[in-house]
């Protein structure tokens, strides 16, 4: 395992973790018909998709998203839920790079009847996944059902909801007044909303506040769901923080929503939540689902362990060297676990620890040139 890339190590560990909790590895094709994404565009982060024409003239797309395909093909029922995980590549436009990028994504989905325990279990696995990547991690949790119920309570229209969510996601109190300009919102509702912007802390500490701020049944139910996560996970919920600035970027999520952060990585490396809306859109209203994915876009940069030497021993040879001795030497070094490389000339473009030379029938050490 020592020579595996960090990303590969993380994959093996996550695979082991998910299998231990009874989730099944799932594989799928890289392509999907474009029409499928066109119909579900509001569930995608971007409407830019790489397309090509198949032999039969069908417009195909390179997958921009995995969950959509899983949901389309799922055979889960409420009584027989599907628990699966995957390691796939998706093709999306990266805002930072301004072009399409191939992004490795390891994800886990639970489809069926999402009980309170199932929710807690998926969140627990998200926590454990973060721990595999790095010890210093945080899972930010939020609840779209809670916010939606609040907006229903203040009877906000679509535009006001979008503007309020935008202020919330940026923790922007100063522009709230501008957003509310012209809307006849009661002063106490504004103060109420400002509480949501300011709320940030351990879920176990904040959950009482969340309950106290609930003004209708749907908000109370959402608060109870958050409370049940604390209760079910006990000490395991220590690393969960509640922060409502985490809001839905797409039409995907309707209940709990969570993002995982690891120290010194500026963006969320894990994203997930409850997404019943998507199932309803695909005529599977009877089902519920929750899941998450770890994104390796940019993460490899932080996971990379810097190594000084690419090669442990370089073995130099020339036309007089005994090829059998050369082969034997190389085999011996490789078998002993070293990274070895046969070279005709002195290497110039990589770093090595040691260099030896096969001169006719003898092995000689060469002093490092620099």
């Amino acid at each position: 395992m020592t020579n595996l890339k960090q990303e590969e190590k993380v994959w093996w560990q996550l695979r082991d973790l998910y299998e231990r909790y009874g989730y099944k590895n799932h594989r799928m094709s890289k392509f999907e018909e474009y029409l499928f994404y066109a119909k579900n565009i509001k569930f995608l982060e971007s409407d830019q998709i790489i397309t090509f024409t198949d032999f039969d003239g069908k417009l195909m797309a390179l997958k921009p998203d995995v969950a959509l395909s899983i949901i389309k093909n799922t055979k889960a029922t409420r009584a027989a839920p599907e628990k699966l995980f995957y390691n796939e590549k998706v093709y999306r436009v990266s805002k930072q790079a301004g072009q399409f990028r191939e992004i490795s994504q390891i994800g886990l989905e639970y489809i069926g009847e999402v009980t309170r325990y199932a929710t807690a279990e998926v969140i627990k696995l998200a926590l454990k996944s973060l721990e595999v990547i790095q010890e210093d991690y945080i899972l930010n949790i939020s609840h779209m059902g809670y916010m939606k119920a609040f907006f229903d309570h203040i009877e906000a229209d679509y535009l006001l909801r979008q503007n309020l969510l935008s202020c919330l996601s940026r923790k922007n109190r100063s522009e709230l007044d501008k957003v509310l300009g012209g809307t006849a919102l009661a002063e106490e509702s504004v103060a109420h909303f400002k509480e949501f912007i300011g709320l940030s802390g351990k879920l176990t500490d904040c959950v009482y506040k969340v309950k106290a701020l609930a003004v209708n049944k749907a908000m109370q139910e959402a608060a109870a769901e958050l409370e049940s996560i604390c209760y079910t996970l006990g000490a395991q919920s220590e690393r969960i923080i509640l922060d409502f600035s985490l809001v839905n970027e797409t039409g995907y999520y309707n209940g709990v929503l969570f993002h995982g952060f690891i120290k010194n990585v500026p963006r969320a490396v894990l994203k997930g939540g409850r997404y019943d809306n998507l199932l309803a859109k695909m005529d599977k209203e009877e089902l519920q689902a929750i899941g998450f994915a770890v994104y390796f876009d940019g993460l490899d940069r932080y996971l990379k362990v810097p190594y000084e030497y690419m090669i442990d021993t370089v073995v130099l040879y020339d036309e007089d060297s005994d090829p059998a001795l050369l082969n034997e030497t190389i085999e011996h070094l490789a078998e002993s676990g070293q990274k070895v490389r046969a070279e005709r000339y002195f290497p110039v473009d990589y770093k090595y620890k040691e260099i030896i030379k096969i001169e006719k029938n003898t092995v000689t050490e060469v002093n490092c040139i620099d």
Partner: protein
Amino acid sequence: MINIALPKGRLGDQVYKLFSEIGYDCKSIYEDNRKLVFENKENEVRYLLIKPSDVSVYVEYGAADIGVVGKDVLLETGSDVYELLDLNMGKCKVCVAAPNGYTEDEDNVLRVATKYPHIAKSYYDSKNKEIEIVRLNGSIELAPILGLSDVIVDIVETGTTLQENNLSVREEIIPISTRFIANKSSYKFKTKEINEMLNKLAEAIADD
């Protein structure tokens, strides 16, 4: 240690003064040299002096935990950061300006010179108006005088520069002020420190 991205220049000096008054001073910043990083280990702050238009990028990518930046830069870059406080400094407006006496020729596509292509595009998009953008980095006022563009979209503070170049404001797009911003991940790992700074800043501003 908290990394603070400050915009180089007059605004940065003003902001540093505010930070030092609330307990985050770093005396070495006054030394006359070309250093861009200043650190005070005692109060755990490190100041980074950065070109104003790059501040939000440093914060979004986590090279700085927090920063101070004009709303114009945030609107232009669309950086995904927390916008924690309006510092009520560096107040100005993004405006459309044109030479005095200019009348629009509806037959031609309006040519707009600006260093804010994104703001200009969204403004004219919202009016459903087709424009051609000429992206410039400075001396924008020169563009309509030399016929490079019909109008300009730029920040206007007092209007003196416009006046001296025979230009005047035609439309106001959006008011601008300086914002205290934070990286979304850093905020979660350093919530206590950042909130403490935020509260002190809010108090200091309220006192003014």
